């Protein structure tokens, strides 16, 4: 298992280099530059700015300069925020986005697994239909609708929770975490229901029951271990998705996370910031996919030999 882990980790290096290179040239192909603004700057000023950021050099030279910087962990200065390095900006936004992702994932897992397992156990009853219908709604309702809706109800009408912010007012983390977690809870509910239904029909479950084990023990000890494998495989891409896709929730709730930096960097043509965040997110996606694959292998002994 360890050798698989290291092999996969080594494979990630060329993937990241390709992602970085493609992004580097793609952003340069996009029309408009980091210093274009409604109030046009004079040619002299543009020349000065390009010199300051070495944008006058041939593109190949800039590419090798950049890549050699990345190798030693230097993502360069941000063009949009003079005086701040891309690494600093990522490190500022990451803990917040990470915290948001963890809370959302916990909410998603709690709601998702609980309702999925109950639905599987009480198949074709109201306890199956109701959670699964809510799950379907959760998958269909986008966060940009759910977020403002929750804010309207709990923030403005009931005045129970703050409408925005992160670590500023008590309770301001509740609504964003629920908003972001809800869509994932819906997926997890459907996945765990499917997984559980498959397992519950297996012979070993019947054997366990025949041996006289309590139903709780049959479910928690035997059925869930196999039934939740699809959920575990989904966790890797889900966490990566939560990290990279929190932009909407961050904007709605005014959260100082990484998602906002990422999207705004693209609008601002902040070349180094686009590259830095893209490389970082690619790395995250690779790592979380790897981790969830490892976890699935560990849970499912049959696939270890493959």
């Amino acid at each position: 298992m360890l050798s698989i882990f290291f092999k996969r980790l080594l494979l990630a290096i060329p993937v990241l280099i390709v992602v970085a290179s493609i992004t580097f040239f793609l952003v340069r192909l996009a029309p408009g530059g980091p210093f274009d603004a409604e109030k046009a700057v004079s040619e002299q000023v543009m020349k000065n700015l390009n010199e300051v950021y070495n944008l006058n050099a041939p593109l190949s030279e800039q590419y090798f300069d950049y890549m050699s910087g990345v190798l030693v962990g230097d993502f360069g200065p941000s063009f949009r925020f003079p005086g701040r390095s891309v690494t600093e900006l990522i490190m500022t936004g990451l803990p917040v986005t990470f915290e948001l992702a963890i809370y959302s994932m916990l909410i998603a897992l709690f709601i998702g697994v609980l309702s999925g397992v109950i639905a599987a156990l009480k198949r074709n009853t109201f306890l199956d239909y109701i959670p699964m219908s809510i799950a379907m709604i959760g998958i269909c309702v986008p966060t940009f609708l759910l977020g403002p809706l929750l804010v309207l109800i709990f923030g403005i009408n009931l005045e129970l929770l703050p409408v925005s912010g992160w670590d500023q007012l008590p309770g301001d983390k509740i609504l964003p975490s629920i908003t972001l977690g809800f869509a994932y809870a819906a997926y997890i509910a459907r996945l765990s229901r499917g997984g559980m239904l498959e397992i519950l029909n297996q012979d070993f479950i019947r054997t366990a029951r025949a041996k006289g084990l309590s139903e709780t023990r049959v479910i928690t000890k035997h059925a869930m271990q196999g039934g939740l494998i699809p959920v575990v495989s989904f966790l890797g891409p889900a966490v990566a998705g939560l990290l990279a896709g929190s932009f909407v929730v961050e904007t709605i709730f005014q959260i100082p996370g990484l998602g906002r930096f990422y999207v705004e960097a693209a609008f601002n043509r902040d070349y180094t910031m686009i590259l830095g965040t893209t490389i970082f997110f690619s790395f995250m996606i690779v790592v979380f996919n790897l981790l969830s694959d490892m976890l699935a292998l560990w849970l499912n002994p049959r696939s270890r030999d493959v």
Partner: protein
Amino acid sequence: MKYLVLILSFFLISCSSSKSPVDLAVESKVFHYGNGTEPQGLDPHIVTGVPEHHLLLALCEGLTSSNPRGGESLPGSASSWTVSEDGKTYTFYLQENGKWSNGDPVTANDFVWSWERILTASLGSQYPDMLYSVVNAEEFHTGLISDFSMVGVRAINEDVLQVTLKEPTPFFLGLLSHYSTWPVHKPTVLEHGSIDDRNGQWTRPGNFVCNGPFNLKSWELNKKIVVEKNPLYWDANIVELNEIHFYPISNEMTEERMFRAGQLHVTNTFPSNKCEPDIQEKNPNLQIHPYMGTYFYRFNTKNEALKDVRVRKALAYSIDRKKIVESVTRCGQIPAYSFTPPGSNGFFPDTKIPFDVELAKSLLKDAGYESGESFPVLEILFNTSEGHRKVALAIQQMWQQNLGINVELVNQDWKVYLSREMIGDFQVSRAGWIGDYEDPNTFLDTLRPNRGNNKTGWDNYEFDNLLIKANATLDTEERYKILMEAERLLIDEMPIAPIYTYVRVYQLHEDVKGWYPNILSHHHPKYLRIEND
């Protein structure tokens, strides 16, 4: 599960009983400010935007200071000034007790060094032209001279600064209200980098030293910036707020919800789709005031069809501006019949742009387009925004119906739009211009030949000469006559078609006092108060 519900309910109840930040502010004197986007930085010689301006008004101060009610500048770092008879020499007398936030006195040499800094080409400042009216400033910036002592700014002594201008520039005091002309603390800047270091760390909390009514307390990226009262400020007695919290909120809906939940005293903007219902419901917090900005359409005068002034006039005359503000923008905007907004420092242009379809048709016919069908397909370029799209759709319809020409809409991402405008790859493009200082020159100057912001290809030297003449005229009445002539010439040539004058639309909490509407929308925080009626 039972415990979880219990904990959650307890938590929710405990939240609901707390007072909102705005309620608490009556006691704490903490002002909560919705400030648009995350500021690029706090270095007055490098940043360029409006959110940065709001922050710098609190943190630093130039020779003059914005009048909270608009109009004439008030004393800032300079307590008084004199102007020579020829209007070319300004002598500024600095405040006797002017101090930097670390206790150092503010001296005339600080200004000399700061102006040297912004004019140093390798700093890459985007606003050096604010000082181009100073003798040899442009020459120093473009590298024609390298000795800064030849530039027309010098310290007569510690407290007296003398500035010599190339031409009498009647709006020079207005230029000084722009942050690019403000001083920075030399020892602090040099401690964290060189004179031309864009990435110096001197603007970080703990390092930051400036001379405004507030000090930088903390700065959390994308979250908030806190400034606190500066006891060393020369006019500290007048400052009533203890702190200002600036929140970068890029989403107008989020900002509106925050205002409703009592998290903000003032918003930066207001959702346009809520504007009309809120006007009807008489939302007491909604503020709508004329703003020194014009929304207009640029014509590319290098284009085969648009190089004919009759075509440009036909297009401009077939736009029903009243209908656009009443049915499309619907938020108090004012139809524009001149490029310079009326009321810019007492300047009221008398130009007219009729909505006359028959006249427009005959102009188009005179230009050789008998029917609209023979006219080439016209493209309107605009950047992604629901507001711009709606206006473009309305104008497309007006041109198609009134002139019978085919019009296509081209929607581009902001930077693509800017780059297409810059290289002249457009026929008609939507544009907006907000004045940097309160004078008609900030508008008319942009359309002079060779100005980067012209972008229309229109190079009229008669217009250029009128502006040069106006800048050399000291008497305001006489000067405005010349500028009026320029404005008439501009509207007669129509390289741009003004559509409407902007209004500032935002929400202001009723506890806020000392906030007066003014055309530049400059609200100096040192005059703000929070009082519960």
